[in-house]
């Protein structure tokens, strides 16, 4: 039994061999999806930048589907599966409950993802990420999504089972750590999300086979229960990673467990309502429904993020002060490990998620303001600040710790790793802000040609649009460079990196 564990020389945690392998497998597949989505991102960027206008129309929409599915579903969920195994088995010194089922779920998710990739790349599913009915894809597309979702749901079940195993086998004393608590809220939101997914993808799958009908408005309503809630899994997981990175990089402390845990709980209770944001200018829903739900019932989920936005930096400050950086107001910040990519990624993730992502999101989450934002570039401007500069950047920062602690390899190209978060954060910041500005001029999202070259009527956007679209392209290229460096470092370290010695067998 004990031979299945090793003791981590850095953290002193006992790591179950199965947890080790599951984390590795999920992280590797996640990075592969990131690579596919990233190549699509480059080609899309060079198409929307009208000066280059690279792709033909059909491949533009096809790769937009590929980009959305790979980034928002495959990359991020595989990575989150790895985080769930880490936060349960590793942090609690426990074994993974039902490892065989865990591997079955992993392969089910891989199979689902491969089916979806095949349908997308062969042009059988040019319906974009949202696949709004009555746009129709091949039944295989919906089936692939369902297989993937079932796999993810099983992993969530294994996560909860592992929490129970750890408790029963007394692998830890006291309460579960805050990071595990945060991961548990992400897992609960995942159950809600995947429930919505089943409720909409199963009828849509049947409809694609010619059985029954799916109402276009109800599809939008239920689909966003999946589409937006899945982003809330990311938010909860990202905040858990903030606390994790704070602990690993500067030994940041939890100021008050009660406040941080209440804030996580607010996500569970209120964040699913946020799906209503997408339906503010829809014909099928009354204003009272829109107001109540888009305010997440009095903005209580926004309150949660505002609390974490205070407690995480405060915990970092206190951690630094306990380590002796006590001079004046800002020595703790000046003397922080800015050359540690885990730390710089953490800080930029907090700042860009909060200030750019948070403010843009809450603004056009207002019913009336949504009239001037809906389906313009303001929307992707917002979510690239949250899910890319926020979640993805935090996950990138975490990778620089996963490589030595789990893969037990030295991080390759260290000088590049030190600047990678700076490059990626600067690029995403320029990209998101430029997209947001373009959106305020009414530039549509998901649009192949805003010069309307072959359209029956001409239209000329304000000349300022050319400027912001160029800024968007420059920011995007910077970020893609940062992303490419991340993938190069990760792949090289994992497959060809120098192994770390000094391992203690339990």
């Amino acid at each position: 039994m004990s031979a299945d564990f090793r003791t981590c020389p850095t953290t002193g945690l006992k790591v179950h061999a199965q947890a080790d392998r599951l984390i590795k497998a999920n992280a590797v597949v996640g990075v592969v999806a990131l690579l596919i989505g990233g190549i699509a991102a480059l080609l899309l960027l060079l198409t929307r930048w009208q000066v280059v206008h690279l792709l033909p129309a059909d491949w533009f929409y096809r790769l937009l589907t590929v980009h959305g599915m790979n980034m928002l579903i495959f990359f991020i969920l595989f990575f989150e599966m790895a985080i769930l195994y880490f936060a349960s088995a590793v942090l609690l010194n426990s074994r993974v409950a039902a490892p065989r089922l865990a591997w079955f779920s992993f392969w089910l998710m891989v199979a689902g993802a491969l089916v979806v990739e095949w349908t997308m790349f062969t042009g059988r599913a040019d319906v974009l990420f949202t696949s709004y009915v009555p746009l129709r894809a091949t039944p295989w597309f919906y089936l692939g999504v369902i297989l993937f979702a079932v796999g993810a749901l099983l992993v969530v079940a294994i996560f909860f089972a592992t929490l129970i195993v750890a408790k029963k086998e007394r692998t830890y004393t006291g309460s579960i750590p805050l990071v595990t608590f945060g991961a548990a809220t992400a897992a609960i939101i995942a159950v809600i999300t995947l429930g919505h997914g089943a409720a909409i993808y199963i009828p849509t799958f049947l409809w694609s086979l010619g059985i029954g009908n799916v109402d276009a408005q109800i599809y939008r309503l239920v689909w966003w229960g999946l589409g937006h809630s899945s982003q809330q899994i990311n938010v909860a997981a990202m905040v858990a990673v903030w606390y994790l990175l704070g602990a690993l990089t500067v030994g940041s402390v939890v100021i008050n467990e009660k406040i941080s845990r209440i804030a996580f709980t607010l996500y569970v209770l209120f964040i699913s309502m946020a799906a209503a944001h997408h339906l503010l200018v829809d014909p099928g829903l009354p204003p009272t429904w829109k107001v109540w739900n888009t305010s997440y019932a009095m903005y209580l989920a926004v309150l949660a993020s505002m609390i974490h936005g205070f407690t995480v930096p405060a915990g970092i400050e206190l951690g630094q002060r306990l380590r002796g950086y006590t001079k004046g107001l800002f020595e703790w910040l000046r003397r922080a490990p800015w050359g540690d990519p885990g730390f710089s990624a953490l800080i930029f993730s907090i700042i860009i998620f909060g200030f750019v992502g948070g403010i843009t999101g809450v603004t056009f989450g207002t019913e009336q303001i949504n009239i001037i934002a809906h389906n313009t570039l303001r929307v992707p401007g917002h979510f690239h600040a949250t899910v890319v500069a926020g979640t993805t950047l935090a996950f990138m920062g975490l990778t620089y710790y996963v490589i030595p602690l789990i893969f037990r390899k030295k991080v390759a190209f260290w000088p590049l790793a030190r600047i990678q978060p700076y490059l990626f954060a600067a690029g995403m910041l320029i990209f998101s802000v430029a997209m947001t500005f373009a959106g305020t001029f009414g530039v549509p999202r998901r649009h192949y040609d805003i010069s309307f070259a072959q359209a029956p009527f001409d239209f000329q956007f304000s000349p300022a649009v050319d400027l912001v679209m160029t800024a968007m392209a420059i920011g995007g290229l910077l970020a893609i460079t940062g992303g490419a460096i991340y993938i190069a470092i990760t792949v090289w370290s994992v497959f060809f990196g120098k192994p770390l010695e000094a391992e203690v067998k339990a």
Partner: protein
Amino acid sequence: MHTGIQSPQGVWWKPVRGGEKLWVGIAFAWCLVLFAMMPLWHLRGGQNPSGIRSKVDPQAFMARTQEFIRTYQVGTENGIPVVEPPPGSDIYLMGMMWSWQPVLRLRKGAQYTLHLSSFDVNHGFSLLPFNINFQVVPGYDYGLRITPTEAGDFRIVCNEFCGIGHHLMIGRVIVVDESEPAAAGASSGAAIGGGNL
């Protein structure tokens, strides 16, 4: 003191202190301000997305739009009919792969009820350069009370992906000054549908 990856021992439900308490208070107060804004704007604001909502069969909406076009058509442009409805009337705009039917000629300062729907898939109504956006969903009639406040030549760009020709889907709205005479052939006053006769 412990970090987020260590298990807290004993009771962690402890009172909140100083700065953190103040911050939670400020944040909650701000959330309440945000919460009040949307309902207040329904009472005070000039632009609200509420509208008159009803379900409609796409075929029925197509029939209504065609009757609307027959009644008020004043011309044709790029194969798309141009209509000039009288002030105060119900006007119809239908999205279909990949055009907006018809071209609307409206009068500045007059009130209309604009009915938006789709014949096939989701479309996005985006009035440019004003930047006013609504979702157009098949099976649903979105009735919006509108008053054009500016004369000019406007475009309706589709901003919801609707298939390979999505980027070619662009419509036109012309708003003329109050003083300008009606286009030749424009009738006035006739109600649409006539179901109440």
